[in-house]
């Protein structure tokens, strides 16, 4: 069962397209990381999903049902920008949430605020950006929601508090709840998420399980001492997504069958054939970069 199902969602601002026919399935109990460069459409997607903005086309369903007042009890949202009231204290926000949401647990909120070292008597006005994020995170995780939608839930936080938030996300998943979150810090997504989508110009250009993407996607590198060697046998292989040639070194980004491709590279006359693993940052980078860009992974392999 999908906790969230986004189907053919589109959102235009005037002539520019923010979300472009986006479809995503988010299975129940998963932590789903949404990655993408600035302006890729992550925040717009979240806002459309929550009815805070009207989509031009498409639908969003939660456990098979469209968003409705009754669904709101099940969904907690941390927006990218603070929606807290400047003139209210943190404690007053806690009280407001207690009245608004039946399953909200004020004692959990109090615990989390203590963990983030936030004095509930303080007014929001007196809080830094990171502390505001921490307040919104504390309120969301005290909701006992089944689905958490978190837009940059660690922004402005120090590394220790960032790790706290990741721990909270992991804990929700261990309880069977579903978390959808965006982050520019790919290392956080790599830790907490089991599935990801990479958004670029409003489209999902890559989706999958993080561990499967890492297992399948490799760089196959080889040396062709004779620069005139015809490498079309390997470069046209459907599993090869990208070919980089630097002098005598040829690097192939393969999406599966790395061992196979490595063998055909050797058969084509390459020496020094080896496989390089890609972490999520490399995978992200290759997904959003044009084929002629210099890559981190490529630079790294030269240095080795």
């Amino acid at each position, binding site marked *: 069962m999908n906790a969230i199902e986004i189907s053919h969602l589109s959102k235009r601002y005037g002539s520019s397209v923010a979300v472009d026919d986006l479809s995503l399935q988010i299975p129940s*109990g*998963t*932590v789903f990381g949404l990655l993408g460069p600035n302006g890729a459409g992550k925040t717009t997607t979240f806002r459309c999903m929550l009815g805070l903005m009207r989509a031009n086309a498409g639908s969003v369903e939660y456990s098979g049902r469209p968003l409705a007042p009754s669904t709101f009890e099940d969904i907690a949202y941390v927006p990218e920008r603070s929606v807290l009231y400047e003139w209210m204290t943190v404690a007053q926000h806690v009280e407001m949430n207690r009245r608004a949401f039946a399953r909200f647990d004020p004692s959990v909120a109090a615990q989390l605020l203590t963990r983030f070292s936030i004095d509930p008597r303080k007014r929001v006005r007196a809080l830094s950006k990171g502390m505001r994020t921490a307040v919104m995170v504390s309120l969301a995780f005290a909701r006992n929601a089944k689905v958490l939608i978190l837009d940059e839930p660690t922004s402005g936080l120090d590394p220790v508090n960032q*790790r706290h938030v*990741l*721990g909270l996300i*992991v*804990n929700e*998943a*261990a309880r069977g709840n579903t978390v959808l979150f965006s982050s520019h810090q790919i*290392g956080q997504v*790599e*830790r*907490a*998420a*089991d599935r990801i989508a990479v958004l670029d110009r409003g489209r999902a250009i890559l989706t999958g399980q*993080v*561990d*499967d993407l*890492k*297992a399948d996607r490799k760089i196959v590198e*080889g040396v062709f001492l004779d620069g005139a060697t015809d490498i079309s046998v390997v470069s046209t292989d459907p599993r090869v997504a990208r070919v980089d040639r630097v002098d005598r070194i040829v690097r192939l980004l393969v999406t599966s069958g790395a061992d196979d491709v490595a063998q055909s590279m*050797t058969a084509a006359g390459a*020496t*020094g*054939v*080896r*496989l*390089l*693993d*890609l*972490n*999520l*940052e*490399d995978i992200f980078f290759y997904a959003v970069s044009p084929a002629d860009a210099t890559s981190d992974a490529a630079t790294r392999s030269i240095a080795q």
Partner: protein
Amino acid sequence: MPAVLTVDPGSGVPIYLQIIEQVKRSVALGVLQSGEQLPTVKQLALDLTINPNTVARAYRDLERDQIIETAPGRGSFVRKNGAEANVRAAATDVARGAVDGALREAKSLGLTRADVRATFDLALDRWFPEER
């Protein structure tokens, strides 16, 4: 047991494979002994701050490979039956991966089968002098 297992989420090696490799290694080394309990999926996920579904996937594969067994409601344990064979299999598994990597490297450097065999025999003599 948080100190026994560590993972590097930022590496290109899938996290579930890192867990499998480490549990097998720990069993082979006797760090984890026959019948000993592993942390629960939830506990390990929280200890390492990694996704619980990823931990569950590693545990499923370890069960399939008969390294661990899971008693519903009680947790996961290093298998008791045939532990000896499992330890050996786990050790062989770890070693096979290392040998594979070395051979891939040797082959890609243009060494022949005979070259590799000669190199390997020398290394064997150095590491197992008593069994010559």
